[in-house]
């Protein structure tokens, strides 16, 4: 068995392999942390931006809704008709041709049927009958 030469030394600065691995692991962990942090912040920014955008769209929607409702109000329509010199009147009863039973048309007047009104019983006892 050859005798180990104690005088023979490795040249240069050498770090043991396990230490290199640990160091590399730490570096990877740190980089991952930085990357995740940056990613989280970016996502946060995007969420904030989307939140703002949604609020802005809601604002615009409400404003457009307001404009539309103002525009289609009966008084606005009357004004527009008058402005364009359009005179409209309801047709006389005798000139009407009904394409459906008037009762059915009346039904659409309300979401409650007349039957429902019939079914509702007086809550108090009937007197004076």
């Amino acid at each position, binding site marked *: 068995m050859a005798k180990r030469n104690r005088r023979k030394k490795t040249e240069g600065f050498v770090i043991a392999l396990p230490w290199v691995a640990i160091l590399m692991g730490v570096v990877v962990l740190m980089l991952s942390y930085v990357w995740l942090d940056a990613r989280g912040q970016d996502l946060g920014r995007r*969420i904030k931006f989307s939140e703002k955008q949604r609020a802005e769209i809601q604002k615009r929607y409400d404003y457009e809704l*307001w404009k539309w*409702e103002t525009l289609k109000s009966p008084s606005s329509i009357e004004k527009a008709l008058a402005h364009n010199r359009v005179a409209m009147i309801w047709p006389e009863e005798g000139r009407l041709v009904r394409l459906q039973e008037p009762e059915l048309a009346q039904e659409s007047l309300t979401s409650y049927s007349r039957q429902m009104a019939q079914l509702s019983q007086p809550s108090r006892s009937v007197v004076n009958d």
Partner: protein
Amino acid sequence: MIERRYRNRLIGLAILMMLALVGVSTRLVYLHFHLSPGVDRGARINAMRQFRECLAVSRGKILDRNGNVLALDLVKKELCASPADIASNRNAQAVAEIIGRILNVEPCVLMDRINRPERQFVYVTGYGHVLEDNQAAALERAKLPGVFLKDAMVRSYPRGTSLCHVLGYVNLEPERNGCAGVEQRWDRYLRGVPGLLVSERDGRRHELYDRRLLEIKARPGANVMLTIDQYVQYIVERALENAMREQRAKAAWAIVERVHTGEILAMANLPAFDPHAFRATEPDIMRNNCIANNYEPGSTFKVTVVAAALNEKLVAPAQIFDCENGTWFYKRRALHDFHPYGNLSVADIIKKSSNIGAAKIAVLLGNQRLYAYLKQFGIGECTGIELPGEETGLLWPVSKWTSISPTRIAIGHEVAVTALQMLGVLCTIANDGVRMKPHIIQQVTDADGRVLYQQFPVAVSQPIRPDTARLMKSLLVRVTEEGGTGARARVEGYTVGGKTGTAQKAIPGGYSDTLNMSSFMGFIPAEDPELAIIVVLDEPSNNVRTGGYVAGPVFKEIAEQSVRYLDIAPMGNTTVADRPGVGVNRGI
């Protein structure tokens, strides 16, 4: 080969760098996980960074029965400034001139507000005043130093003054409470629940999303859908406006109700007010007279007495009463008719609106029975409509009546009602004797469309039998026929039933000879009533001030347009009595 001295230096450098790295890392860990030994300092930094924000929530919308928006929240801009900043730039005058040019306001008015260097914050155009969108855009473009725009949530009413008394109004930020009408009564549903945000900001005061500690989402207010139809409402308001102008009346109000369900299709009051400018409005003008004004109804009240007497079979339509040629002394007190009559049948007492005839029927009925019927008709108690400030009316207990009380109550004096109560009496007759609870709310739904509240038709009582009600309907139809007091309320092609009322207004010490409340209430089509309408004009000033002359044509205008709009067909020439079970008994 590295020399020994270089190697030592390299090792030393590496150790130094490692130490520095460890130090920095330790500090980062301490900072990141709040492990700083100076607890107070850490808490102070946290307190500086941390903020709690109440997440504003918009109020729910108010809609008409067809989903048209009557009230909604809008985000507008308020013009604010930091006078201290403006003063530091020494350009207050220039700023005032630019703002004045954009807003069309005198710069000197603005100077009063912004030339206060000791103040950090002012509302340039006053608290609660919001800018038009073009003005806000122009000011944003101007980028004036020390001047900025602040978001403000405002309640907006796209129909302006229309339906103002029903909708009410909302006070200014931060409370934003509903203060009248539907806004007040349904505030609990409309206001929603504000959210909460607890988070941290960076040095530039931007929120650090990843440091968001708590976020409770705001729950938007629920939408309230009314039974009101915006077009019927418009018809009513326009008719009242014309009547106010023509009759030079002090005020006017009207209600349109669906007979079979009690749904209110329109409720209008004039003069109206702008709900956006509620701070500049007199409280009296903001009162909803339809439910909050007790008035003596006059002759419209005769229907209760006659209906009660017919129901008790005390009288028959053809029974003759002596109307004393216009003056009747009862208990040594005189009672007069507007026109003198001799003998009149019960049917004609209603048609001609004879005070003496009605008074005699009331005496025949007796105090206790009269009182019981009036209570059953809902006189002297709230109808329970879902609006704030409803008055009960005034009906004294029998123990407080004088000997002539029944004769005065019979003609609509010594008793006070609201227009809604009076219309309730008519609807009861038109609905075959069944009194329905009037309602103005159809349903309440949350932002996701879930129904939180729904109002169904509710029958309250049945003061008279169906056959009595049908008889009364036929008598009321005669009022609008030739020779009746309500002939001016007739609608071409339809049969209308109704009753006129002209009451002298009570003044201190008696009744005024010049001040009247003129009213007309009616239903259409009389054979199977679908709509009941009441019109009241307060203090019309023309020479003729009777209900039939003043309010009848308003009824006609409202009724003839409403039946066309709602496509309610006329029933032909069949008489009411020939149609057993019309109304309630005819189910669809």
